[in-house]
């Protein structure tokens, strides 16, 4: 009987194609925070809008598999599935290429165990055809679980942007994330954005300094933000957009 001689340790064929799928992407920014509720999703969506408005080709990937919400932030309808053409083409929303598991769960609950979440991430990365992008922004789940860490493990040279708030609860949590990121050899953290802060706080500045990471800037708390979520025109008039635009102009590459 013939014997298969090539049975490598990693038997998942999907991993072989992920690099090819991401090959046309120049910069990958996972938006990370181990603490929930610090504004990762809005920062991801608005940063994608800002970069798009500056003329870049931008993608937004929601990797919060069990609780996706980037589509809500951008006002994307998930009723229509992304088109298929030799793979799945991300939906175009406001000029941004957008992909989320929400298209396939139709916003219903998707209760999954850790390895199942990993399976979904691999499937999405293997079938999504991004094409050429200047930036891929990834909205990641909170915590330090499989899916949060997978958000950086499948990508070549990802540059995480870490989100914190001035709350001591967030600081403690984000410190743990930074310790983990610090242990990954060669990983360049883009910096920390301090969200929901009218002024830069000493706590977050010191945290950035402790890990030799750039403090990128603060984003004021905008009490009206919930009223404009899902409306990209109105999102462009928020304090969040203005503050994040300043941060992006200073830190995220030259004008095209």
């Amino acid at each position, binding site marked *: 009987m013939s014997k298969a*001689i090539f049975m490598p340790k990693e038997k998942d064929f999907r991993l*072989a194609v992920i690099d090819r799928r991401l090959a046309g992407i120049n910069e990958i920014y996972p938006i990370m925070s181990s603490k929930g509720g610090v504004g990762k999703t809005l920062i991801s969506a608005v940063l994608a809008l800002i970069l798009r408005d500056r003329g870049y080709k931008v993608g937004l990937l929601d990797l919060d598999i069990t609780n996706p919400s980037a589509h809500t932030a951008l006002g994307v309808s998930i009723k229509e599935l992304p088109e298929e053409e030799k793979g799945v083409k991300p939906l175009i929303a406001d000029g941004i290429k957008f992909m989320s598991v929400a298209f396939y769960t139709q916003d219903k609950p998707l209760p999954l165990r850790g390895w199942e979440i990993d399976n979904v991430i691999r*499937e999405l990365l293997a*079938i999504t*055809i991004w094409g050429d992008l200047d930036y891929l922004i990834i909205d990641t789940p909170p915590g330090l679980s499989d899916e949060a860490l997978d958000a950086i493990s499948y990508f070549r040279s990802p540059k995480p942007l870490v989100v914190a708030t001035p709350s001591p609860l967030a600081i403690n949590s984000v410190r743990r994330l930074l310790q983990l990121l610090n242990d990954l050899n060669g990983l360049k953290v883009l910096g920390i954005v301090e969200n929901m802060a009218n002024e830069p706080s000493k706590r977050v500045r010191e945290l950035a300094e402790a890990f030799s990471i750039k403090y990128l800037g603060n984003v004021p708390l905008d009490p009206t933000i919930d009223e404009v979520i899902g409306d990209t025109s109105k999102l462009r008039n928020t304090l969040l957009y203005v503050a994040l635009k300043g941060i992006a102009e200073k830190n995220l590459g030259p004008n095209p």
Partner: protein
Amino acid sequence: MHEWALAEAIVDYITKVSSGKKRFKRVTVKLGELQSIDEEILRFSINEILKADGIHVKELRFEKVPAIFRCRNCGYEWSLKDMEMDEEIKELIHFVPEAVHTYFKCPKCGSRDFEIVGGRGVYVVEVIPE
């Protein structure tokens, strides 16, 4: 054609694990029933990509695997034929098989905490060079 994307992944995998060999006696791929892959489209796609990459596979074998589920709460086991699945949901699960947890529960106790024991999706089991 979502199958084309999977076919590219399979051919990239064959190339990767064989360190670039060009001739193979057999490649065996398991097709899990849950993902309802169109076998003919997948075969066509793989053959087109193999041809373009100058790779020869004498026998491309597909093995169908029935989808089996086991409840983590009560231990009950069931198969796909026990589930009524309309075409729309079938299509959503075709792209992301784990979405089965969104649309189905354990038929015995109603828990969504169940495991896909077998037949989830595509799986390369054998790559035999000439």
